C-alpha cells in the first residue's frame, strides 16, 4: 500500500494535467506544499476548541474522483482519494462543510466520504474488512439533502449501535446518486437492522425505497470478477 500522501501528490498532478493542460512551474510545487500541510494535519491531534460542542468521535472528510479516460486499476482508488480535513466538534464540522461543494453540484464520477478519524474509506481497512454497507440509490436532485441528513445523524450518534459505524459515502454517478453507510460487523444482524431503521427515519424515505446491504467481502469479490484480478486493492 502506498503512502497516502504520495498518492495525493499523484492525484493532484493528474487532475491538473487532465483538466488544465500542463501545469506551470509554480503549480507543480503545490502538491509538495499540500503534502507538508497534510503532514501537519496528521501530526496535529484535532481537538474541540474552547466552548465548542465536542463530537463522540473525530471524523475526516475525503474526496475522490475517477480520472476521466483512466480505467480503474488496483492503485488508482487510493491514488485518487484526497483527505480534506479532520474535525472534533460540531463547529469545526460546519467550518469544513460550509467550505465544500455540495454533492448535488459535483460533476462526473465523484465521491465524498466522511469517516471516523483513523479509518480509511477502503474495504481493506482493519475497521472495514469484516463489515458492509447499506446502499440507497437516489434519483438526481436528492443527493445534497440526503447526504446532509445522513452525516448529521452519524455525527449526532443517532444510530445507537455503539462503535459499529465506520463512515458514510455519497457517490455522484451519471444517472443516479448513491448514499451509503458503512459498519464494522456485517454478520451482526441486530446492528444492521437498527442502522436500516434509523436510515429510513432520518432520511424520511418513502416505504417503497429499496435499501440494499452489501458486505465488503462481496464488494471485493465483485470487483475482482469484473476486473479479472485475484488480489484487489481498491474500495468504495
Amino acid at each position, binding site marked *: 500500500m502506498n503512502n497516502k500522501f504520495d498518492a495525493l501528490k499523484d492525484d493532484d498532478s493528474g487532475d491538473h494535467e487532465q483538466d488544465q493542460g500542463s501545469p506551470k512551474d509554480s503549480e507543480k510545487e503545490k502538491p509538495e506544499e499540500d503534502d507538508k500541510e497534510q503532514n501537519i494535519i496528521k501530526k496535529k491531534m484535532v481537538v474541540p476548541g474552547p466552548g465548542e460542542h465536542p463530537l463522540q468521535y473525530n471524523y475526516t472528510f475525503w474526496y475522490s474522483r475517477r480520472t476521466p479516460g483512466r480505467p480503474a486499476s488496483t492503485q488508482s482508488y487510493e491514488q485518487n482519494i484526497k483527505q480534506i480535513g479532520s474535525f472534533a466538534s460540531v463547529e469545526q464540522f460546519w467550518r469544513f462543510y460550509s467550505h465544500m*461543494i455540495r454533492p448535488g453540484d459535483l460533476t462526473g464520477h465523484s465521491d465524498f466520504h466522511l469517516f471516523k478519524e483513523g479509518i480509511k474509506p477502503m474495504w481493506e481497512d482493519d475497521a472495514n474488512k469484516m463489515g458492509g454497507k447499506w446502499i440507497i440509490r437516489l434519483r438526481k436532485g436528492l443527493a445534497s439533502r440526503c447526504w446532509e441528513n445522513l452525516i*448529521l445523524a452519524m455525527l*449526532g450518534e443517532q444510530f445507537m449501535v455503539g462503535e459499529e459505524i465506520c463512515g458514510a459515502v455519497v457517490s455522484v454517478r451519471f444517472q443516479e446518486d448513491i448514499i451509503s453507510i458503512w459498519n464494522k460487523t456485517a454478520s451482526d444482524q441486530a446492528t444492521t437492522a437498527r442502522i436500516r431503521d434509523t436510515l429510513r427515519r432520518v432520511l424520511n424515505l418513502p416505504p417503497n425505497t429499496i435499501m440494499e446491504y452489501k458486505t465488503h467481502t462481496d464488494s471485493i469479490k465483485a470487483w475482482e470478477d469484473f476486473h479479472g484480478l485475484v488480489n484487489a486493492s481498491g474500495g468504495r
Partner: protein
Amino acid sequence: MEVSSRRVLLRHLEPARPLRRCVHVNILFSFVLVERISYTRDFLIGLAGCPEAKKRPEYLPDHPIVLPEAVS
C-alpha cells in the same frame, strides 16, 4: 421453636438495606460510563449559523471542491 426461627430470619434480612444501595450506585456508575455525546439534527443545524461555524478552517487544501467563501 417456630418463634425463634422467625427471629433468626429477621436478623438475616436486616443487613440487606446497605447492600441494595450499593447495587444502585453500581448501576448508576455503569450508566455514566456508556453515555455517548449525541445531538439531534435540529440542534446541529442550529449551530451552523454561529460565527465559529463559518470561519475558514486553518488547513484546507487547494482543491476544486473547496469553496473560497462559506455557503449555508
